[in-house]
């Protein structure tokens, strides 16, 4: 069993779509949190097969999209320093900062290296003792434990030239922020399956209860997405507001204890600015005091960084599910994957990139 193809099986997906069609009786507006889920809805064409009563709005679960422009500008400033090797996940390289992106800094001669795992950045530090290696730690609760392990190993093994530019984010505070913003019309959520695999979903039960909003922890394959939607809409139709788990083969209520223990050891929760959403209290991971000497924001000084966004970019409204990408005046013209104005057009999980890539003509009807 490969655990992929079976969850893409046509007959099963179609049968599940049919049950979804049969259970829906009125309009519902729901959000899938994770950019990976957005991407797969569009890539598989499922978004076009949903009952018309269901409006799917896309959430801010794309860490590349919501990493603050200030932190990107800091990463760029670090990469420009001759003694620094800046290590980053590949999809950050073309995300626009205020004036530049990491890829253009690399083109100018700055040393920027793409890594697949934070442990790779640690290996680079070990192999380059005279240089200062900075890992740009982006991602949600899924990725933070990997960064935590690299930080712990650096300290344990005395790798003194490794430090972290911490940019990790937590999902539940963002859901709270969305639900508390005036005019929020989201009635239910598909929660991110891999975030919940690490963190568990107890925090989502608090949200579901407080806001009387159903939440279904959902996987990423077509069958998962349709099944998750079916479970969510069934709850909405019956007036329930529980947390349910569609992704039971990987996610559990308690999450991954070893990963959570590592997070608690290395990180503290802090306030963090989300690109497009603003400051969200207690929504970020920063290094706890015992690991402060590995904090790039303390090791290096940053001067004269004035961060700003492109004027036409409506990424914030897209990330909050208030606008769809084709409604942006710059979509497909001034803003394309080749020359993006904002992050969601660059990221492999960004809503704008997904719409641009997977049949923009299909979404012409959302243009004002």
């Amino acid at each position, binding site marked *: 069993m490969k655990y992929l193809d079976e969850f893409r099986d046509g007959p*099963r997906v179609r*049968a599940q779509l*049919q049950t979804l069609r049969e259970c829906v009786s009125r309009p519902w507006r729901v959000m899938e949190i994770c950019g990976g889920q957005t991407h797969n809805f569009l890539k598989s064409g499922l978004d076009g097969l949903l009952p018309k009563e269901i409006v799917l709005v896309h959430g801010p*679960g794309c860490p590349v999209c919501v990493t603050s422009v200030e932190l990107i500008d800091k990463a760029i400033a670090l990469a420009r320093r001759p003694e620094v090797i800046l290590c980053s996940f590949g999809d950050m390289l073309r995300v626009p900062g205020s004036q530049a992106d990491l890829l253009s800094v690399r083109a100018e001669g700055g040393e920027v290296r793409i890594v*697949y*795992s934070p442990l790779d950045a640690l290996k680079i530090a070990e192999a380059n003792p005279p240089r200062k290696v900075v890992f740009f730690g982006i*991602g949600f609760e899924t990725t933070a434990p990997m960064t935590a392990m690299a930080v712990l190993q650096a300290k344990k093994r005395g790798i003194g030239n490794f430090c972290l530019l911490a940019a990790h984010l937590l999902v539940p505070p963002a859901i709270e922020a969305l639900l508390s913003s005036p005019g929020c019309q989201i009635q239910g959520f598909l929660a991110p399956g891999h975030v919940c695999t690490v963190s568990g979903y107890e925090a989502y039960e608090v949200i579901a209860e407080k806001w009387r909003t159903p939440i279904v922890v959902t996987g990423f394959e077509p069958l*998962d997405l349709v099944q998750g939607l079916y479970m969510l809409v069934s709850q909405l139709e019956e007036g329930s507001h529980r947390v349910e788990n569609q992704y039971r083969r990987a996610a559990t209520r308690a999450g*991954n204890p070893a990963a959570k223990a590592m997070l608690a050891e290395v990180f503290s929760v802090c306030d963090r600015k989300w690109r497009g959403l603003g400051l969200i209290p207690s929504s970020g991971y920063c290094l706890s005091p015992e690991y402060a000497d590995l904090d790039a924001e303390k090791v290096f000084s940053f001067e004269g960084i004035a961060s700003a966004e492109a004027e036409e970019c409506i990424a914030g409204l897209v990330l909050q599910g208030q606008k769809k990408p084709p409604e942006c005046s710059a979509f497909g013209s001034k803003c394309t994957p080749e020359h993006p104005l904002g992050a969601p057009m660059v990221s492999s999980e960004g809503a704008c990139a997904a719409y641009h890539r997977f049949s923009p003509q299909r979404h012409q009807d959302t243009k004002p």
Partner: protein
Amino acid sequence: MCLGIPGEIVEIWEEGGLRNGKVRFGGIFREVCLSYVPEAKPGDYVIVHAGFAINTIDEEEAKATLAAAGDLVDEMR
């Protein structure tokens, strides 16, 4: 970013105090850190993200998820 790919653990060893494994994804093998799945053994399937396994896949639950949809297929025939 939250991309997690299922793969099969083929081999496990300790290196530098960390639990590592060789994981097979179809025809490709990658080295994966298994520190967050301390009970996983060769033959288990894990979800891999950013070079680490984040959990083992529960085969029974996977079958149950498929069966729930499979039953629908049968009902609709």
